[in-house]
């Protein structure tokens, strides 16, 4: 991992060349990441905010099944009405539904725009956040 401005350095090019040869011998591939291939500031912030929902303790089978029925493939839906609707239908607290939904976003079961705006404002999901069903749900 380096900066694009450093890619032209002779020492770095030699190191990269040696690494590619070694990785080639081992049957693997060597990649150099730069700031151009990594997420921007907004996506970074969203990844860090969603990271807390990685544990499976936040998952909820009822919410997942209900989302599979409520969301249409590739049709974005506002997250706040969806959470309220699910909480009412399943008789679950809103924070439970919110956590379950964020877990599904982290694990790419449902999708949202991570690059354009912050998902969380004042530690709560922003009202403009929209979600849509992902590949896994469509295949299920």
């Amino acid at each position, binding site marked *: 991992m380096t900066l694009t401005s450093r890619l032209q350095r002779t020492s770095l090019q030699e190191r990269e060349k040696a690494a590619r040869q070694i990785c080639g011998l081992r049957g693997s591939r*060597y*990649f150099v*990441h730069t*700031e151009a291939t*990594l*997420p921007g500031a907004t996506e*970074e912030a969203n990844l*860090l905010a969603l990271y807390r929902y990685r544990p499976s303790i936040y998952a909820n089978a009822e919410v997942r099944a209900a989302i599979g029925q409520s969301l249409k493939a590739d049709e974005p839906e506002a997250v706040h009405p969806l959470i309220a609707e699910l909480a009412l239908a399943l008789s679950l607290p809103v924070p439970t539904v919110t956590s379950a939904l964020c877990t599904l976003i982290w*694990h*790419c079961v449902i999708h949202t725009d991570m690059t354009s705006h912050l998902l969380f404002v004042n530690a709560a999901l922003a009202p403009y956040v929209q979600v849509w069903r992902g590949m896994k749900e469509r295949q299920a």
Partner: protein
Amino acid sequence: MALKRKPPAGTIRRVAPISNHLRYAITSKAHETVQCESFQGRTLTLLFDRDATVQEYRASPNALLGLTLLDIHTPMDQISLSTGRLPR
């Protein structure tokens, strides 16, 4: 005075903050200690964590065919994928 600690097992050295860079020691999805030497490195581990096709990732080995410290600034370049696709 900062305390000096041994690097994690199988790792060249304990990473240090270079200029204004942050350093991290995190636990990967394979329950191994992985060091990051910048916030960009930490971001890359988040992508690996989120991508279900990445089974594990780890820090630099002790030596890469005799060339120690080869990837001293790229501590998370060893990843195992269930498919041939890289996350980025």
